[in-house]
């Protein structure tokens, strides 16, 4: 029966070609506008590490005090060196890592190539096991390397290609800031988006090109290129040591706590630690700590700007207007078909049959609108790529989930828009149409 309805619907589309095309175009434009704005939201609201996002945590300890705290009264996102080291030693979790971003110059082995600067990350080895970074070659450095402050490095895929052109770089040296580092591992392309582990600047920024041990970077006195928050500037006379012993917050810190129990225990430990610091006279304010997992962290850090939500709201209001328009167009179409619907009623079709027949036609229109809407979405996203920020342009794309959402949304929206016209059509008096 349904097949018959679809055949009828198809015939009706052909007969009312202009009106049907107009309906399809209207809905498709609405779908294109709403889905292209939704695409940006979809990209930014994604979970960058879905299999682990509830097990990775950022501990926050207020080492700056109420004068530097933001208006929201939350502790700083970053930890001081003292606190990071203390957490590492006092409470080893399954994995953890203190990290900060640095800038390094790379001198290619080929003397004809100019040196260039890359953003790099000084981090504990826990980084790689916590975030499940995929290795193409080798693996991360050892505990011994960290203890000896060895000059070892893990390269991102892009830099390895640029320097070694497909040769195996393992064991070879890379010259960073005029020191040779032994390459122990090469990552596969890896760009979690948003870059949850470091949201201090652009949330969609690319991952770093080189990773070196945290201890090595500290030993070489490599300054952070990220933020540094100080309530009191460290004593200049003490130089690098002054920064390390200060309460300035400048390190990202992540821990992996596999169970809810682990997280609760860690939370208690954190509060106890801060309270101890207050008692010891380091903090002149009540202990303030937080422990947020990846999802809570992304929400707290407000990764999706209000502007994106506002644009999305405009996109979906547009779809609403298009649907209202489509209702009008469908009313006109079904009204033009009163005679043949009347004949069907007179020949014994129930009101319900007519409603189903009209809805089948809406479903067909919905399907075609969905396909056309998808094409428009792809076009609009391509256009968006030219205007949005470079980092967003790199990650914005229409994935399979978005394709399905687009088709489904078009289908549901069109059937909803077709409900009232279908009901109207079913109320045609059969007798009236037979008088002709």
């Amino acid at each position: 029966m349904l097949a018959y309805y679809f055949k009828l619907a198809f015939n009706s589309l052909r007969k009312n070609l202009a009106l049907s095309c107009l309906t399809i175009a209207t809905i498709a434009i609405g779908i294109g506008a709403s889905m292209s704005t939704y695409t940006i939201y979809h990209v930014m609201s994604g979970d960058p590490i879905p299999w682990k996002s509830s097990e990775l945590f950022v501990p926050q300890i207020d080492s700056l005090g109420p004068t530097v705290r933001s208006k929201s009264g939350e502790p700083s996102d970053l930890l001081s060196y003292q606190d990071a080291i203390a957490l590492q030693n006092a409470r080893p979790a399954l994995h953890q890592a203190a990290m900060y971003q640095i800038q390094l110059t790379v001198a290619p082995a080929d003397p004809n190539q100019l040196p260039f600067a890359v953003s790099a990350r000084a981090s504990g080895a826990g980084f790689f096991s916590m975030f499940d970074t995929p290795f193409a070659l080798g693996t991360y450095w050892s505990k011994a390397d960290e203890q000896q402050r060895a000059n070892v490095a893990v390269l991102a895929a892009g830099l390895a290609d640029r320097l070694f052109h497909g040769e195996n770089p393992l064991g070879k040296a890379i010259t960073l800031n005029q020191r040779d580092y032994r390459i122990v591992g090469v990552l596969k392309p890896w760009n979690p988006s948003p870059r949850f582990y470091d949201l201090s600047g652009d949330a969609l920024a690319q991952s770093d090109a080189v990773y070196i041990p945290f201890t090595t970077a500290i030993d070489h006195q490599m300054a952070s290129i990220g933020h540094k928050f100080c309530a009191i500037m460290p004593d200049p006379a003490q130089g690098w040591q002054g920064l390390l012993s200060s309460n300035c917050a400048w390190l990202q810190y992540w821990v992996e706590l596999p169970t809810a129990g682990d997280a609760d225990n860690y939370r208690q430990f954190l509060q106890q630690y801060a309270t101890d610091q207050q008692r010891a006279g380091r903090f002149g304010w009540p202990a303030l700590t937080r422990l947020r997992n990846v999802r809570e962290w992304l929400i707290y850090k407000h990764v999706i700007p209000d502007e994106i939500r506002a644009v999305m709201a405009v996109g979906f209001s547009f779809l609403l207007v298009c649907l209202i328009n489509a209702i009008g167009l469908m009313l006109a179409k079904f009204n033009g078909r009163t005679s043949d619907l009347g004949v069907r009623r007179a020949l014994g079709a129930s009101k319900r049959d007519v409603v189903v027949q009209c809805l089948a036609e809406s479903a067909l229109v919905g399907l075609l609108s969905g396909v056309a809407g998808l094409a428009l979405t792809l076009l609009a996203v391509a256009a968006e790529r030219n205007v949005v920020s470079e980092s967003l342009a790199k990650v914005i794309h229409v994935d399979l989930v978005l394709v399905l959402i687009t088709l489904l949304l078009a289908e549901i929206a069109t059937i909803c828009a077709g409900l009232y016209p279908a009901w109207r059509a079913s109320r045609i008096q059969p007798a009236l149409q037979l008088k002709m």
Partner: protein
Amino acid sequence: MEILPIFSAIRRNPVGALLIALQIAVTMAVMCNASFVVAQQLQRMNRPTGIDEANILTFYNVWSTQSGDFKSRVQTDLATLRSLPGVDDATATLGLPLRGGGYNLSVALTPTDTKGITDSAVYPVDSHGMAAFGLQLRAGRGFTSDEIADLTAEHEDPTLAPVVLVTHALADRLFPHGDALGKPIYLGTKPSTIIGIVDRMQAAHVSMASDLMEYSILVPFQWEGSTTLYVVRTKPGQYKSVAAAIPPALARISRARVIGNINPFVQTRADAYRPFRAMVLILSSVCTLLLIITCLGIVGLTTYWVSQRSRQIGIRRALGARQVDILRYFHTENFLVVGAGAIAGIILGDATNVLAVEHFAMARMPQVYILASALIMLVLGQLSVLWPSFRAAKVPPALATRAQVEHR
């Protein structure tokens, strides 16, 4: 006027009128809010930075070594840059308006107030800083070369500046009576005397807050670190030749470095406001499409009504109605329907703005946006109905005499 028959016609078949009114209401709510956002973004994008935007080039210089005598290296670099043909002046700093970097410190009027009155961007510059940025001095004087101290990664405390230059906006915020010159301010625990007031210099990071964006302080330090931002001000129109001359000139001094992209400030501005521009473009194109769709909807539905009522129109014509009466009928009808939609749109648009103020950091929309969009809707409604009503007026009176005509 024939308002009553219009009402009864609408009452008999209210769905079409309702659809148009609903469309108008939603379109209007979207349009006034979106155009308000667009206007705000445009206004933010057009804020001047206060520096000589047309003639400034900036680039990062990264030394390949972590330590070393950065002081003499920076000084040699600066002397070379200043001697290049076409260069007005150059300085070394850490941050730039719209490009980020530099410090952000709280400013207080007493040494004990650690919370401060406001935050401000802080740029370390040498005695060439004012000229290299192309800043306008409003009062007082700039730094002299003997006031410049060293600022290094190991000795990094910009709060220790004995003298400072502040922007006019910041001076007014701290000293509302206009007597900032000569007064001490506290970036840390030591006083810094205001020796000069700069007309305008924006903070390094693009911020939505228009007041914070204008608060900047210059401190008399020569930045000597592994990463330096060089600011070069060229003579008018010569930035291309200067940009080409810089890398070889600096490479001749030392090759143990990486020179980043040499950005004309125009580029820096475009990059900084790219997300703003994207939002303006996306919002305005969606709004334009929305208006077109709404107008087409009105054209479509009215055309449909005309075809439905062609018999009645014929009868009216046969009974003596002139063509202009038919025209007036449809235009009045459109005015009533669109007007009803616009009234709903005023309420909906305002409610949307209230929601946006509550949930997003949006400002309250001035009434003029709502009224202007209501007016635009009414005008567009009248324009959209021109063609269908013209068709209606052309319906021949003879049509009334025919029995039943399907007219589509």
